[in-house]
């Protein structure tokens, strides 16, 4: 991206003190470190979301509300945003508002008032206060005060593994800062502070990404991924599998499903399934609450304490199994002498295996690098959800976010979920289309004609990944073939032209696809082939 020097970010409104129609964007005034944290989180969010790493800026005015300057930012707001530390650089973030509607507060010369955006705007508003959060996918550009500031921020961003600054349009706009409005900041009054639910949406973001990365495991993975991204889609086939069946409902509100009614007559298999489901989603809830409370201790401790507290409440028939699982997990914090295979032989349910993986692997990339043939598709999917919640979208490294369209898709859904849980009337418009797993895009092989893009993409994948699943059929014309020896070499002459068709061994291909974790570049190339 080339450096752009220009006088204004808002060419449409330059020279006009008041907009004549609803603004298509607003300016968030912040500093570069807060910006980086929000880019990592995928959400423009209140100070409470920064986990103790917040530096004072305009988001602190009315916590839970995002002040967006329409037209010129206020000089005092810029000064405030860099006042806490010498090394902070001022930033103006242009956020698109064309898809947003709902109740906001607005500051005009006659004071602060509540109104419905955009239809009740008078055109004289200087600042609009929007209920947080907003998706970072709505960021249209990031403006720096100087070329030097921009260089420093870009260099700083590269030091983090989860800050996608380079994905956004950046500009140097000196006059935006030098010709800022002299109006006072902060205003004397504003709306009441709001508590914004952030941990559940961030956990949901982690789940979406991880289920996408594990969706190539099989058809169950494809459906689970669809439920994660499009929880309101009634057309998606249901999942009746224990552990996964409440996923769709959880992705809407973060609420844990009601326990199924069980009694002494319930058969052991039904009991096992229902209990696994309750244990699993109860753990998800516990982890989300723990993160919301500031992450004291460790996620592994949360799991151990959860099992300890839950054990006496379980049906007596299941207590021994869960007690044994807890013993195993405790042993994994020390020098247990069991191999991974022995551990998975000991614990066979998806919940137990996901919990075991939780202790064997530190984070999401670590889980993606793990292999064990004893694990089934449901084990992987349960682990993907658990790890997605532990890390959340915030902690995912860029290589797990770089699937084309994933960040925008997740960011918008996280923001929508937050507003749904908070019960605001803010509408963020349609979410970007969900990211379909490669297994879904490639299909089941029934449409793999010689020239179909699905087959072409599958062949490309098999070739670049050097998967042993391609064979070639060479069809020769009818007639007699002649072996010709000339000098020191030989060749065969055949009538007509041979037809050479590369074929894919589908089961083997799908097996390779299930085990592979493709680098973003390869995946992007194959996705492009499937779209073209």
């Amino acid at each position: 991206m080339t450096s752009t020097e220009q006088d204004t970010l808002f060419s449409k409104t330059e020279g006009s003190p008041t907009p004549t129609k609803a603004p298509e964007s607003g300016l968030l005034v912040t500093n570069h470190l807060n910006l980086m944290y929000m880019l990592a989180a995928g959400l423009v969010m209140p100070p409470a979301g920064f986990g103790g790493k917040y530096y004072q800026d305009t988001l602190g005015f009315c916590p839970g509300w995002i002040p967006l300057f329409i037209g010129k930012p206020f000089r005092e707001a810029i000064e405030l945003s860099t006042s806490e530390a010498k090394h902070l650089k001022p930033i103006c973030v242009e956020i698109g508002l064309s898809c947003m509607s709902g109740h906001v507060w607005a500051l005009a010369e006659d004071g602060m008032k509540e109104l419905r955006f955009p239809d009740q705007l008078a055109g004289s508003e200087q600042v609009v206060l929007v209920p947080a959060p907003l998706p970072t996918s709505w960021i249209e550009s990031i403006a720096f005060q100087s070329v030097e500031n921009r260089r420093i921020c870009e260099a700083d961003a590269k030091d983090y593994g989860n800050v996608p600054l380079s994905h956004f349009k950046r500009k140097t706009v000196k006059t935006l800062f030098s010709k800022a409005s002299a109006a006072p900041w902060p205003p004397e009054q504003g709306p009441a502070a709001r508590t914004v639910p952030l941990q559940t949406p961030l956990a949901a973001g982690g789940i979406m990404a991880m289920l996408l990365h594990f969706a190539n495991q099989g058809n169950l993975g494809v459906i689970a991924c669809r439920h994660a991204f499009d929880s309101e889609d009634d057309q998606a086939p249901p999942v009746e599998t224990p552990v996964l069946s409440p996923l769709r409902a959880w992705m809407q509100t973060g609420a844990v499903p009601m326990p199924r009614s069980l009694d002494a007559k319930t058969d052991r298999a039904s009991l096992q399934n229902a209990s696994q489901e309750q244990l699993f989603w109860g753990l998800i809830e516990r982890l989300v609450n723990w993160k919301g409370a500031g992450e004291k201790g460790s996620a592994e401790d949360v799991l151990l304490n959860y099992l300890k507290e839950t054990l006496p409440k379980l049906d007596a028939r299941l207590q021994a199994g869960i007690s044994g699982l807890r013993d195993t997990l405790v042993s994994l914090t020390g020098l247990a002498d069991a191999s991974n295979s022995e551990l998975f032989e000991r614990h066979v349910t998806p919940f137990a295996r996901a919990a075991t993986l939780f202790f064997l692997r530190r984070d999401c990339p670590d889980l993606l690098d793990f292999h064990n043939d004893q694990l089934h598709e449901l084990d992987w999917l349960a682990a993907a959800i658990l790890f997605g919640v532990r890390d959340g979208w915030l902690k995912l490294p860029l290589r797990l976010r770089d699937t084309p369209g994933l960040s925008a898709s997740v960011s918008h859904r996280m923001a929508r979920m937050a507003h749904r849980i908070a019960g605001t009337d803010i509408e963020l418009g349609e979410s970007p289309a969900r990211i379909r797993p490669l297994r879904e895009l490639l299909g089941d092989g029934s449409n793999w004609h010689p020239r179909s893009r699905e087959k072409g993409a599958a062949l490309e994948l098999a070739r670049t990944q050097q998967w042993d699943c391609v064979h070639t059929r060479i069809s020769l014309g009818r007639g007699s073939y002649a072996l010709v020896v000339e000098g020191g070499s030989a060749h065969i002459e055949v009538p007509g032209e041979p037809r050479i068709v590369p074929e894919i061994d589908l089961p083997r291909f799908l097996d390779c696809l299930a085990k592979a974790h493709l680098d973003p570049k390869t995946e992007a190339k194959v996705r492009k082939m499937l779209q073209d």
Partner: protein
Amino acid sequence: MADQNQKITEDNSSRKDIENHLVIDTDDVIELKQNYRNCYPVARLAQAFYTGDPASPPPELPEPGASHVPKLYAYAAGDFDRVIRGILGLADRDPRQLIGVIAPNNKVRGRYFDKLRTLDIPTDNPRPSIETFHGSHRPNIAFNEGGILVINAQACKGLEFDTAILVDIDKHNFKQDNPDAAKRLFYVMVARAKYKVFIFRDRSDPCRADAILPSDSDMLQRKEV
């Protein structure tokens, strides 16, 4: 880059010494105050052995989060094979990790090295690479490929492991009248670990290190093999 806890002169250098030595202005110094290598439980244990002077405070602890509170295992002589099985099991469950087995002397180093190379246990992966330093023998070790390195405490400074296992700490020959020397050695040994620390002692022998080990079980859990 300079470390005020390392020795440039006979004593630890102060920040001012370093500024003078490197001829840089005070304003140009960026002081790194936080512990960037060790995760929280490891850093907290290491801090218990810190002996630096008040002018040179220990690095600030990283954010809490990781689990695996360091553990001190007491084992009976007959349980030595179980100790080795535990170390090999740890390596097998994550073959990518580099494990440092830090011994108090050559005799203990040799004992662990030999047993780690010969004891058979059921594993999912091939036996990890197991190497040692002794005398002038310095094998070429691919530190980024995982494995087990068995070394003497004196040779561990400057190295970094995913897991550090301090074995047979009862065999360290500390002078009673210089507890700071023992603490400094433990600081260095513990701080080699990024994520996990395990400590072993022979149950039957008296252990002079007991006097400097923290008693807080949140910092160091005591277990029996």
